[in-house]
């Protein structure tokens, strides 16, 4: 491990300072969009499609329009008649209409919107809208969507122009595949022919819900000067501004997007969701309008991709990985949302962080008549890690090799080429693996299995169980190219303001940015105020997602603060008659490095420059990372990202042999965070990711029947609760400073989510000798797998249960 940074000078950075928003949040005073009330505000409700795929023949909104309290009813047919309105939106393809035009594509597709005096009146009126549908045959899963002659979810597609990395994408014509990522490296077929062993498996990972505490909510209104003000629960205020400006034909200056605290996002609140329809209603009624989803609507708005991964690996007799061929099928639902980027970014990591000379990857983004899938913490990587880390484990086990040692031997090292041809750097994956293995005392038993468990007794009743240990690693690349702008204002009293479009969604960005500014300017963390996103004043930022804010916004803020510091030092150097390079800032003072008592307080520096109170020094910066686009045919790029982030997990599980239920007894998860700005927050992020992922590994799954979601509420869809958290769970920080990171930091938002499922699956295999390939690992699946594998033994067990003894 290497360390860089400021050494003993680092006082605000590198310390677990308390959250700047902590007291406000735990006392319930923090305001969220749902608390936003604008005088004269109307409430909106949506009528949604009951069918997965149908042509809209006729809509009669007459009864709704005359319902008491109703101000406006809008349908897709109205949209096409509005002059200057482009009714389609979407970050990759502009494939989603504000309200369905001509046809509906999933159960839950918004068909009409109502604005009324109360939420109840709006909902009642929405139910009075009569829609006549002509049902079309639907494609309800990926297999159906890929069949020759399958009905098309979209007949034509229009790429969006919002992001550089997505500008080149082209949809395949007359199929439901809206994007196909290809990676070709080496000669896979020849390598397979030379391989001593070939492993081929199919792994699946189901659709799952983000379940943020706060549902999607947007308030829109038009203020003086024709300014469209939208306050919204979004992770991407800058993108939403751009999208609204385009939809409504407004200059960017006439769209103001503000985001207060966000009540959790996890990717669900990226790109446009409710903003276009809410803004439309506000413009139509010239009244403020609020739209807030119910939990049930939340379930059909966005989810984590259901994925099927076919993975084939050729291995030499000595265990070297010769070739890997991966085909990944992503069920993206009815609208692409950001799916093509998921398919691309996760696609090129689908062979894993291993030294494999021959790689072939095909990653397919497939439209189906299901609710849309999009970004979810990890951005598709956990689904492909589930496949490649389960199979890597199977390879080690089959060859009789220790899974940890096997991985260590074949993991990429500094300077090695990734499957994309990108040289790896700042990659502490082996250190992460070693850390988690140590934490669960790996090595006490062959191939990860624990010593046979003693009989477990509960309430005096014996239970027969087996225990096992498993590990997994994961890798993800930071989004590139990407851009963060920031403004830092230092006030005459030594307090500072940060203008940034990074959304504080619970991850701790307010505290982190305050720490960076406090460190750079030598002021106190509590005196730094981070101004929440307001596109009227906060500069462009690509998005608060993708584990990018610490690195990108951190750098932007650091550079902006450095520009303030330059001005501060320039003034002070005049007054102190010393070269500015010799000056330092700390404890609210500017002083000479080798003569600390020679200095000025910040108010004294301001006094020297300005003859007025309350003045400011302002610094601005835009931090931009670049990348070389992957080649269309080979997926190769010398620089696919600027930053890799890697992690590892280790689990010890206990499986009940009669029920199949898996209990995680011990769990450790490590993330290479670079140099942590706030170690405690890093550990919390790692822990939070792990707990969420444990729920997704063991029981979370969205069930569909005929395109209809059947467990779309918290009655029937469970997320991990406190009592589902393993009794021992340890988040571990691994530090490999990034040369370009702010103070060496990388980021940590997703790292803890990458490898959880595979570690648990591998532990189950170690316990039972049975490999499960479908998530979640429900007890029924585990029991079934045990019985299918060894029917004879199961039958004997059955007799033991019933027979004497």
């Amino acid at each position, binding site marked *: 491990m290497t360390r860089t940074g400021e050494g003993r000078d680092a006082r605000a950075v590198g310390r677990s300072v308390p959250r700047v928003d902590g007291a406000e949040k735990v006392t319930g005073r923090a305001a969220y969009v749902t608390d936003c009330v604008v005088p004269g505000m109307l409430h909106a409700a949506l009528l949604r499609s009951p069918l997965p795929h149908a042509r809209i023949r006729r809509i009669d909104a007459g009864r709704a329009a005359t319902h008491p309290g109703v101000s406006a009813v809008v349908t897709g047919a109205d949209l096409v008649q509005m002059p200057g309105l482009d009714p389609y939106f979407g970050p990759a393809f502009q494939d989603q209409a504000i309200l369905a035009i001509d046809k509906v594509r999933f159960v839950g597709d918004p068909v009409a919107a109502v604005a009324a005096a109360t939420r109840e009146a709006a909902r009642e009126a929405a139910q009075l809208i009569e829609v006549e549908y002509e049902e079309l045959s639907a494609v309800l899963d990926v297999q159906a969507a890929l069949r020759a002659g399958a009905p098309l979810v979209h007949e034509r597609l229009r790429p969006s122009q919002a992001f550089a990395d997505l500008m080149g994408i082209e949809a395949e014509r007359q199929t439901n595949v809206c994007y196909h990522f290809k990676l070709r490296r080496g000669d896979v077929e020849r390598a397979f022919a030379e391989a001593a062993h070939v492993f081929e498996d199919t792994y699946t990972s189901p659709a799952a819900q983000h379940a943020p505490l706060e549902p999607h909510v947007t308030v829109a209104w038009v203020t003086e000067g024709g300014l469209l003000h939208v306050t919204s629960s979004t992770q991407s205020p800058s993108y939403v501004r751009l999208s609204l400006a385009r939809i409504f034909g407004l200059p960017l200056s006439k769209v103001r997007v503000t985001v207060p605290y966000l009540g959790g996002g996890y990717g669900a609140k990226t790109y446009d969701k409710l903003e276009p329809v809410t803004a439309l209603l506000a413009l139509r009624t010239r009244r403020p309008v609020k739209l807030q989803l119910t939990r049930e609507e939340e379930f059909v708005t966005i989810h984590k991709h259901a994925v099927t991964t076919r993975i084939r690996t050729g291995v030499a007799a000595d265990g070297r990985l010769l070739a890997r061929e991966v085909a990944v099928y992503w069920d993206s639902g009815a609208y692409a949302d950001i799916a093509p980027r998921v398919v691309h970014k996760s696609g090129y990591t689908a062979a894993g962080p291993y030294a494999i000379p021959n790689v072939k990857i095909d990653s397919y983004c497939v439209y189906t008549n299901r609710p849309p899938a999009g970004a979810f913490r990890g951005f598709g990587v956990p689904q492909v890690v589930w496949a490649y880390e389960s199979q890597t484990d199977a390879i080690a086990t089959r060859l009789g090799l220790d899974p940890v040692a096997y991985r260590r031997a074949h993991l990429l090292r500094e300077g090695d080429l990734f499957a994309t041809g990108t040289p790896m750097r700042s990659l502490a994956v082996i250190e992460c693996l070693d850390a988690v293995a140590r934490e669960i005392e790996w090595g006490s038993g062959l191939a990860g299995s624990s010593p046979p468990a003693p009989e477990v007794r*509960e309430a*005096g009743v014996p239970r027969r169980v087996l225990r096992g240990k498993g590990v997994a690693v994961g890798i993800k690349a930071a989004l590139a190219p990407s851009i963060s702008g920031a403004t830092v204002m230092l006030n005459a009293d030594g307090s500072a303001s940060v203008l940034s479009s990074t959304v504080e969604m619970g991850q701790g960005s307010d505290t982190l940015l305050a720490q960076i500014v406090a460190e750079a300017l030598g002021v106190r963390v509590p005196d730094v105020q981070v101004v929440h996103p307001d596109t009227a004043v906060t500069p462009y930022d690509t998005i608060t997602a993708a584990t990018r804010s610490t690195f990108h916004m951190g750098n932007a803020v650091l550079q902006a603060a450095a520009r303030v510091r330059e001005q501060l030092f320039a003034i002070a150097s005049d007054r102190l008659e010393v070269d500015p390079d010799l000056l330092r800032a700390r404890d609210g003072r500017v002083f000479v490095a080798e003569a600390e008592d020679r200095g000025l307080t910040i108010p004294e520096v301001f006094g020297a420059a300005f003859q007025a109170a309350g003045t400011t020094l302002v610094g601005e910066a835009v931090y931009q990372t670049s990348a070389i686009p992957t080649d269309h045919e080979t997926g190769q790029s010398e620089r696919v990202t600027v930053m890799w982030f890697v992690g590892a997990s280790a689990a010890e599980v206990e499986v009940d042999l009669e*029920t199949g239920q898996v209990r995680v007894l011990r769990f450790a998860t490590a993330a290479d965070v670079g140099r942590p700005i706030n170690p405690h927050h890093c550990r919390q992020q790692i822990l939070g990711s792990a707990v969420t992922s444990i729920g997704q590994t063991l029981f979370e799954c969205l069930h569909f029947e005929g395109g209809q979601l059947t467990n779309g509420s918290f*009655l029937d869809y469970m997320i991990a*609760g406190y009592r589902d958290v393993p009794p021992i769970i340890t988040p571990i920080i691994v530090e490999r400073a990034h040369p370009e990171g702010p103070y060496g930091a990388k980021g940590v938002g997703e790292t803890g989510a990458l490898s959880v499922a595979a570690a648990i699956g591998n532990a189950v295999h170690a316990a039972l000798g049975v490999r499960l390939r479908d998530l979640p690992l429900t007890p029924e699946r585990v029991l*079934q797998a045990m019985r299918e594998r060894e029917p004879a033994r199961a039958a004997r067990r059955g007799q033991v*249960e019933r*027979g004497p003894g």
Partner: protein
Amino acid sequence: MGFDLLEPRTVAEAVELHARDGNAVFLAGGTALLILQRQGLPLPRRLISLRGIPGLDEITAGPGGGLRIGALATLRQVERHPLVVRRVPLLAEALRQVANVRVRHTATLGGNLAHGDYRLDPPAPLLVLGAQVRAVGIGGEREIALAAFFRGLFETALQPGEVVTELAIPPTPPSGGTYLKYALSSNDWPCVGAAALVALDDHGRCREVRLALTAVAAAPVLVRGLDELARGEPVSDRLAARLADIAAAQVEPVGDQRGSEWYKREMARVFARRALLAAARRAEAGPVGDGTKEPVA
């Protein structure tokens, strides 16, 4: 959606209000009703709230060691009541496992039973405790054995306009009891719930065995025909397994996302056996019931 909330002060008045509007619905804790509303079922225009009726949530000692529990007592009130904890710890143990503490503070025991959902926890312990439901309708009052109360999916023996007012739990013989809730995650409904009560004679042999299962049929199941096999026998692993086979043969699981029909039947067998053994161990350790002290938990 708008509705009228009627707030009678007596049970007779409540029943009378329903007689005037047969579409009205009785409201107790409201947790189930709220769920139905959120699932898109239209709420009735008229709700008859039972919450303002004095005395309907009282918990009192019954004759000879039994208990009377007012229908409007919340699950939490019942769970924490000293009489319940002392006389029927099995019930307190089961209620502790229902949903979460916020729901338990709102949901009522009477409402829980009247709802007739197949996957609720409280019916299982109440079935093995031999509870009687007291119901009042326009025609008067009657008692219904809980064993005859559950008829099918969301179907109970209650007549339209009848309201549950009280639950009577008769004295239990000195025995050990347990409720095992088997769920896929900590906040979930049960995949299977199993309640068992085992009474032993002085030689540690079975005097009486009672077992009820929930979530494994359209209605909670009180397993029949166990005593014939068990009476006079020590509760061995073998006996428990044979009794569990009898139980598994009496369930008719409807597959849901918590388990297929096959899996639920298998789990009915597993948890029937575990519950019987656990109840027997408690009976051996120190039975509760008439004139006995609190159990060893």
